[in-house]
């Protein structure tokens, strides 16, 4: 049901984001899923070599807000975005919401 709402918001996105997850390094702590309000991230049904259920992304919903990457303890997530305007300062951390 929440899926609905999220899908709706997708349409309004001004920038498109994509996340890339290094699944072998992911420890499946799920903190990123908590941070992502767009519902991009979910736990896979598979486990990686370390034995953790890693995270997979539905990049269609991604706004590139970097919240997930910020909270990922193991620096597993890279985030990409379609350029809007170049912002020079503090590129990696985004703006506080």
């Amino acid at each position, binding site marked *: 049901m929440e899926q609905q709402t999220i899908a709706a918001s997708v349409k309004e996105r001004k920038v498109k984001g994509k996340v890339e997850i290094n699944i072998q390094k992911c420890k499946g*702590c799920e903190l990123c899923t908590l941070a992502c309000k767009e519902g991009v991230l979910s736990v896979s049904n598979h486990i990686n*070599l370390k034995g953790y259920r890693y995270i997979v992304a539905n990049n269609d919903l991604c706004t590139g807000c970097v919240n997930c990457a910020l909270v990922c303890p193991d620096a597993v997530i890279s985030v990409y975005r379609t350029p809007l305007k170049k912002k020079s300062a503090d590129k990696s951390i985004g703006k*506080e919401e």
Partner: protein
Amino acid sequence: MTIEERSNIDIIQEKDNNIIGEPYETVYQKPGTLIDVDMHYCPGCYHSLVHKLLMEIIEEMDIQEQTIGVAPVGCSVFAYDYMDIDMQQAAHGRAAAVATGIKRLLPDKYVFTYQGDGDLAAIGIAETIHAINRGENILIVFINNAVYGMTSGQMAPTTLTGMQTTTSPAGRDTNIHGHPIKISELVAPLPGAFYVTRQAVNNANGVRRTKKALQNAFNYQRLKKGTCLVEIVGNCPSNWKMTPIECTGFVEEQMMKTFPVGDIKLPKAEDLKNLKEA
């Protein structure tokens, strides 16, 4: 999740399925100063998160060559395996003394310690307070997760009232164990303390603010006006016996009550003038 539960999932070796094409630009990436190995920290442990922040700052400020870290005993004792900077592993509790030894000889380098609460607040409180009282121009990064992580969850001086640990099985009893020590509040009044703040990385904004605080602290170190202490509310899924997400809840509902986030001591404007000029 225990391995038993995990085992109903096949172990697979899947190729990364997120391939990025144009016209995307990178907005977040692991800093190059964070060595590309698995960190031994438990899933969801904030130690790894703070490591990442520190290495981001060092990369962004381009001070890898100017920075020396000190990590004493505690879960972060292996920090030198992850941080691509010169580091010293210190005896339990003595990071502030070791950092003093380094900084007095290398006054123009950035020197920071990275300490847990058992380390800094219990066995190392003397070295901590005296380094701050002398106003050593170092940054103390203080990860307060309210337990002894590495040794498997004993009570720390910061353990919350009533909190169960392996050495306070009936919960911390203030009549016997005393109240949790608030280190930041304790040391802030010392004239040698230049900047004291408490942050938490419980959500993305918390991470942003924590990073800002750490950035400030690195910048302030150039002023040579005293010690910066950045306390970060930590977690310990393994010893709190919670999932990382449960930990986040505990941090927000319990930890932050006893250890409220916010700036505890800010530099005076006049002190910061020099920094802006530089």
